[in-house]
């Protein structure tokens, strides 16, 4: 498309062609973006439509009259805020736990002379090959034996350690120059103090990436919360929204749309505000994993 050559006479024609390139680029970008976000826009639009307009044909892209009745209805019919609170607490718990267990283990693998260090590390990596679907049934039996069904314990405990986090952090901790540790050791820092005062400040991007990936994947969990929660009180947002859909779809589709938007808001707001950190975290976790 670009007609850049080194010959000077072309200089005059370059401007219109550059303009044309811009127009084409922005048009394609806008069209593609519109297609990508259309499902969400249409959902949001439906959530503001009064019930008389929801099943109108032909469907209008925007509501003729905007209403909040669906949001009021959704919050009244299902404890959506409770679901979100559950999801938030579970995701925070899992993220915090992963950061603790992974950074301790990663520090040991990266810095300490563990007995049988390589064998142990290979053991950790091997667990990465075990898909969650294989352990699903035994873990279900474990948590029900521990009477953890309908409890934060079932939602949090199985995810408090993972090979991915240990691997990601270990690779990162290893890159910290020796001198930092020497300085700390001269000051008499213990291993834990080295982890806290040397590693944590320097490995902040990796820790943030792990935190983000863990938080997002916990927030999006579906099958596990579905099988370990029976009562409404303990449902997470994903599972809660599904039961809300089954319950209300036939009668109040607007409520379902509003509920789906309510469940969307926390991650959407976080993403728009922290887009750069999201991108950095996800590509870091992705490229190293």
């Amino acid at each position, binding site marked *: 498309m670009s007609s850049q050559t080194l010959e000077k006479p072309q200089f005059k024609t370059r401007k219109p062609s550059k303009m044309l390139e811009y127009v084409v*680029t*922005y048009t394609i970008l806008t069209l593609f973006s519109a297609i*990508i*976000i259309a499902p*969400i826009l249409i*959902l949001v639009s439906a959530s503001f439509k009064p019930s008389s307009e929801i*099943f*109108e*044909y032909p*469907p209008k892209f925007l509501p003729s009259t905007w209403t909040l009745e669906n949001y009021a209805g959704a919050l009244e019919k299902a404890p959506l805020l409770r679901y979100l609170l559950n999801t938030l607490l579970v995701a925070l718990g899992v993220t915090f736990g992963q950061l*603790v*267990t992974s950074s*301790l*283990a990663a520090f*040991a693998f990266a810095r*300490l*002379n*563990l*007995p049988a260090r390589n064998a*142990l590390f290979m053991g*950790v990596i091997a*667990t990465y*090959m*075990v*898909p969650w*679907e*294989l*352990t*699903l*049934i*035994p873990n*279900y039996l*474990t948590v029900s034996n521990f009477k953890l069904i309908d409890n934060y314990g079932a939602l949090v405990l199985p*995810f*408090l*350690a*993972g090979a991915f986090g240990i691997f990601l952090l270990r690779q990162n901790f290893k890159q910290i120059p020796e001198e930092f540790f020497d300085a700390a050791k001269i000051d008499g820092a213990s*291993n834990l103090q080295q982890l806290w005062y040397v590693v944590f400040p320097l490995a902040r991007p990796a820790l943030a990436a792990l935190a983000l990936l863990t938080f997002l994947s916990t927030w*999006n969990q*579906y*099958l596990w919360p579905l099988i370990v929660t029976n009562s409404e009180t303990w449902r997470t947002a*994903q599972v809660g*929204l*599904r039961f809300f*859909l089954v319950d209300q779809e036939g009668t109040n589709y607007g409520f379902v*749309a509003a*509920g789906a938007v309510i*469940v969307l808001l926390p991650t*959407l707001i*976080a*993403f*728009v505000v922290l*887009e750069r950190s*999201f*991108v950095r975290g*996800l*590509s870091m976790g*992705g*490229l190293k*994993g």
Partner: protein
Amino acid sequence: MATTLTGRDGTRVRTATSFGTLWFLVPAAAFLVTFTIYPAFNAFWLSLQTEAPFSGNTLWNGLGNYVDLFKDKDFANSLVTSLVFTLLTVPLSIGGGLLAAVMLHRNIPGIRVYRVLLFLPVAVPTATAAVAWRWLYHPVVGQINYALSLVGIDKVQWLQDPNIALFAVALAVAWQGIGLNAILLLAGLQGIPEELVEAARLDGANPVHIFTKITLPLLTPTLFFTSIVGVISALTTFGPIHILTQGGPAGATQVAVYRIYTEAFINFRFGYASAQAVVLFIIILAFSIVQNRLERTVHYQ
């Protein structure tokens, strides 16, 4: 194992290798053993058992579950469905992600806004996405059928027609993957040295040539990574199917994990479901190994 050094005054100084350091592994090890290692072995063990009717006790069944599985048409179908679903989803979501990444890989004013928009599916939770697509696919008032009617195409029963439902679900799931793939592939594109592309351009290569001969080969590691992640997540998709079609219509979207879920948590046949999980695990493992091998051969070119 302990490395010892001789200190300046001749005393031997022990460094590190002390069993005390193992404490650092205890928290991670405790959870990994309880919730990954033990259950991985236990799944194999359970797959050799069956439930006695009515009593709830388990009985030794040897390889009986696997023999039954071999004859189980529903399970064979679910594996085929999973494979087809994977073959539909992964190219769509990587293709869409690549398209987005290529378009976003330029420095023009306002590009940040487009990045936010095209990455957005990454921030959309599974259930919200499924609800949104269910609405789009509505046979009567859905926007997709309405748009098609404008060009004279009859109403499509997206989620109700057994021949179309799997494709419809795959499209919805692929859409969700586009955000993450775009992020990863854009990072990959940004890692390609500018000089290479510039040099080719000065040599008179056209943009298509530059893309196929330089950009794409240098992007293969990222493409491989996204395809491995994509294949494994497609093979284990559950949530969107549970919300969109519940395995229907007529079993058309009954993927392997859905089958395992039904067998274990609806029919309570833990032994039989475990055997299915073991087979799925072996398939996933085989995929990862093949992809790993492929990746190596491509890298050496």
